[in-house]
Each structure stands twice: as C-alpha cells, then as structure tokens.
C-alpha cells in the first residue's frame, strides 16, 4: 500500500498528514484530522453530506476524492464558517428560517449553499432548487432550506464577489 504525505489547509489551518493511497478525503478529514463536522451519508457522492469547499468555494464530495491527490489544496468545512460566535449569513439564515431538523444533512447543505451564493449571489428559486440537487434532506421537504438560501442571498448582498465568509 502506497503512502503519501500531503499538505492541506483546512479552515485556514495547515495540516500535514500521511495518508494511504486508497483513503478518501472524507476518511482523512474525519479520522486523522478529527474534522467530524464533515459527515458520511452514502459514500457514493449522492447525498452530499460530505460536501466541502475547495478553492473559489467550489463544492466537492469528500467521499469520492482520494486524499493523496489533494496535496497543496485548501479546504473549507462547516466548522470553518462562523466568526467566533457570529454565524455566517447562510448559517444564520438556516437557523432563523427553520431549515434544520435532524441536522445530519446540514453541514453539507450549508456548504453547498455557500458555494451557490458565491457563484450566483442572487439566484432564482428554480436555480436554488437545481443547484441543491446532490444534497439530500429527508426531513424538511426542502421548502425551508430554499427559503433560507433566499434569506441569506438577501442578507449577503454586501458579500458579493468576496471570499467564503
């Protein structure tokens, strides 16, 4: 089994880890770096629970990424969004608009929403619904998640063109 030493930046913090060739980014984040806010939901890139952001706020599935191919990359997880106790506008909107029930899909859903608003700061409802495909929620029926993204979009007008937070 091949071993690879890789340098990652996770939520702004440098992490140097040695990984096996067949380890996923999800496994390394959760087990080696203890970043358990990134969730395992299906392992096949369908449910989106493992969604993290790489550079330019692009969302990827950590469960379908080989950790060894991520040398030098920068990763953001949901734990890296808040500024102390001040939640990111997307997080705050999820809280205020009741977009969270059991919470298991929430880390991935929030990251996906951050990615969407980074790419498209003023999405239509249709655009929101299509962009969120690939993140499964079984509790909410998606209605209040969509509402939260719209609220965040309204509140984030001043963040247009900026970084994650």
């Amino acid at each position, binding site marked *: 089994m*091949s071993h690879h030493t890789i340098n990652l930046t996770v939520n702004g913090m440098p992490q140097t880890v040695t990984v096996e060739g067949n380890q996923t980014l999800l496994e390394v984040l959760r087990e080696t770096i203890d970043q358990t806010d990134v969730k395992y939901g*299906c392992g096949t890139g369908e449910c989106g629970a493992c969604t993290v952001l790489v550079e330019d706020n692009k969302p990827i599935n950590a469960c379908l990424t*080989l950790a060894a191919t991520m*040398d030098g990359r920068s990763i953001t997880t949901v734990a890296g969004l808040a500024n102390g106790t001040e939640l990111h506008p997307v997080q705050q909107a999820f809280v205020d608009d009741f977009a969270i029930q059991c919470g298991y899909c929430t880390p991935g859903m929030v990251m*996906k929403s951050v990615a969407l608003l980074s790419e498209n700061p003023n999405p239509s409802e249709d655009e929101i619904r*299509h962009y969120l*495909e*690939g993140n499964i929620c079984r509790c909410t029926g998606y209605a209040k998640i969509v509402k939260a993204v719209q609220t965040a979009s309204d509140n984030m007008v001043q963040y247009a063109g900026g970084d994650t937070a």
Partner: protein
Amino acid sequence: MSTRVLTNFDLQVPKDIPEALEILDNYQDRITPVAGGSDMLVAWKLGVESGNAMSVTALPDLNYLTYDDNDGLRVGALATIDQLLNSDDVKNKYPALWKAAEIFATHQIKNTATLVGNCLRASPAGDASATAYALGATLTFVSKSGGERKVHIDDLFTGYAQTSRKPSELATELSIPAPGSGSRSAFTRVTRVNEDLAKLNVAAYLEMDGDTCTQARLVMGCVGPTLLRLPKCEALLKGSKVDDATLDAVANTVNDEITPIDDQRSTAEYRRSVAPVFLKRTILKALS
C-alpha cells in the same frame, strides 16, 4: 467492500506527462488511470480490485478549454464539466453539449468530473459523452512508444464500458470541429427524478441548408450496450426537408435500430414506446 472502504491499491500521482506515460507503459492493463474519480471510486467501493492506480490530476497543461473558428472546441483531459458549463463558447456554439453539462450529475461531481473521463467511461447512458458523440468529437491519445494517436469518437466505443484506448495510452484532449452556420444540436434525456442517471437520452446534431438537412448525427443512449448512432434514421433525414412526414418516418424507424432491455431505471417496453417521441422532439428542439 462497502461505501466506506475502498479496495487496496498502490496509488501513483505522476507530476508530468513523461512520468505518466512511463508508468502506463510499465503497467499497461494492470493499472487504472483515474481523473475526477467519481466513477472509479464508486467502483473501488463496490469491490473492483485494481492492484495499481494512477491519478492524472497532478499532470500539468491538461486543464484547458479553448475555442476558435478554425480548431473548434479543444477540451483538455482535466477540464471539468463545471468549466464546460461556465463557458459561453460551449453554450453558444454547442448547445447540446452545454445542456448535457447543465444536467450532468450534481455540482459536486461537475467540479471533479471531466468530459474526457466521461467518454472513456463509455457508459451506454452517458449524457456528455452522448453529445460529444453526436457532435463528432475526436480524442487524442499519447503513449511512450506510439506517440500521438487521434481517434474519432465513431471508433471509440467498442463494447459495454469499453473503448479502443490502448492500455499504455493517456488521453490528453477531446476536440469538436467548429460548427458551421447551418449547425444545429439539441440534447434530451428522460429520468425518474431530476437528479438521476438517464433511462433514455437523445443527442441530435444536424447541418441544415435552408430547410434541407444535409448532415445528421443522431445518438440515443440507454438502449443498447453502448451509446448508439441511428444510421437508418439519419439516412431518412439527410437530403430531406425535415417536415412531419420525415419526422414520422424517423419515429417509425428508430425501434429497428435499438435494443433496449429492462433494468433498474425503466423497461424495454417503455423505452420502445417513447424512443420515437423523444427522438422527434429532440430533432425539433435542435431546429427551433
């Protein structure tokens, strides 16, 4: 294995193309190349054993997407579906390809999956590969001993999930000729829910001279072991005015050219019932 643990393999991550070609030359069919990985990692989780794997993600100079009226569209092996989606050139010049990129999987997968990878996967249900097929793409392969080899997509798909890529070859590019002024294309697919693999898809490419069709490439997916060209249907269109009579003739012919089966997504019976409908609608969409 399970969706939590992959089968064991030694992974190599070459840093330049000569290194990659050396590896392929040594290992040949004993190594699995992987780009975005969205298909391959699932296969490894389902238990496919690959003693060796080679990631091409660190290879330089393979992530490009260019267009000009001479060379047409040139898509590097590492250009992602997301890049296709964000390209005005793709949207304006190759609407079928752009449509396939729009509905392709999920945004997470779009950010790692590649058009070249999708073609090499050779799934009979591929959406982006179906449009590349209809648009008459060419793939470029390089190898240590063979140099550069170009393969027209008509010669790419050799069987279910099989291509004519030689084991020592690395795919570097997919190119599509620049569309002429009479070029029209459209893509349709049918699914169970919106985010899904297709149960039927159609990619249509036509060249029109006024209201006469001079060239047609029709591809239908999910109705055979590979994506299928529909030569009999194409022959009915070539040289004809695309009117109701022609379209009805095409609709009545398509079932002679496809061999759908029952599978998880649909039935042979349903596919036969709707293939004519969707083929007709896709051609009309291309012409609208």
